[in-house]
């Protein structure tokens, strides 16, 4: 491989946990997360010659990934339904990556698991644009400005989408709040 490809591969390896986490949170299941990463990283590699040193690689790929995800959803209306079914069947049996390390009583663990399951379902039911902004701001901790750059929309749009998304999530998760 040439130097540019080596450099790209190294950046992917260094940031793989962050990249996968964003892909998973956007799609809600591991198979779609892998497909999303595959497509986004392929596109990222093709335009890697434009990547400037000093740019945040994760943000750069996250931008491609978010728009790829939104395009998928726009093009394929079946996608949301397929993902919904796959999410709960294929990922439920797997041990989550970041379960609390401290020994918690089984009841607390059970409540947490029930909340996570409900939260994942509620996220799956959100319109894609709302899900994207919730993932970026609420789950990834980005500022409105950072999210607006990734989503390529005004800060005001981020703010109103986030608010509407939160109201929808609050309705669905009311018993845990």
């Amino acid at each position, binding site marked *: *491989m*040439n130097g*540019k*490809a080596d450099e*790209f*591969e190294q950046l*992917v*390896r260094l940031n*793989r946990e962050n990249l*996968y*986490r964003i892909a*998973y*949170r956007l799609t809600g299941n*591991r*198979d779609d*997360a*892998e497909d999303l*990463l*595959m497509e986004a*990283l*392929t596109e990222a*590699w*093709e335009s890697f010659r434009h990547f400037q040193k000093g740019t945040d690689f994760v943000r750069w790929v996250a931008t491609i990934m978010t728009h790829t995800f939104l395009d998928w959803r726009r093009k394929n209306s079946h996608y949301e339904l397929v993902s919904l079914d796959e999410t709960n069947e294929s*990922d439920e049996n*797997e*041990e*989550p*990556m*970041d*379960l609390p390390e401290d020994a918690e009583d089984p009841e607390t663990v059970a409540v*947490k698991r029930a*909340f*996570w399951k409900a*939260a*994942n379902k509620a*996220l799956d039911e959100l319109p894609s644009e709302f899900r994207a902004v*919730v993932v970026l*701001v*609420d*789950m990834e*901790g980005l*500022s*409105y400005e950072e999210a607006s750059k990734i989503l390529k929309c005004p800060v005001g749009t981020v*703010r*109103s989408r*986030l*608010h509407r998304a*939160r*109201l929808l*999530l*609050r309705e669905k*998760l*009311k018993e*845990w*709040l």
Partner: protein
Amino acid sequence: MSCEQWSEQISAWVDGVLSEVEKAALEAHMRTCNACRQTANELMELKRGLRTVPVPPPRHGMWERLLRHIRWQAQRKRFVTVKSLLPLWLGAAASVVLLSSAILLLTQKPKVSQTVNPQINVLASYHADTVSLALSDNPICHLVASAELSEAESHE
């Protein structure tokens, strides 16, 4: 302002992005409004809860598959680049060959008179068809050619 109108402000307050003036106005309202206070608490709890939602590990071998795919893409791109330049190289080589041939043909004098029977030179100046007849193996053609030759000589 109704509670519904305050709610977007509450969402921004949860994120700490309100201006000092907006923040003071909202907090003053919340001191007297139970519904908005409850909304604020729920949105804060929602935000906190969403961050705890875990991410399961990727499928086994996912990164190897992804990186293999990227390496393949990189190699394919290089191959495609070379492949896309191939017609240019072939075109250039073909042009050189054609040009060389044309120069050779133009600079070489025809040597027909040195290799063909001198009689045919006379024929060539008269009629090209007669040349064909003279060169033919068919005896009848030779007879026709001889007759045409005689006629040509008689004209001269």
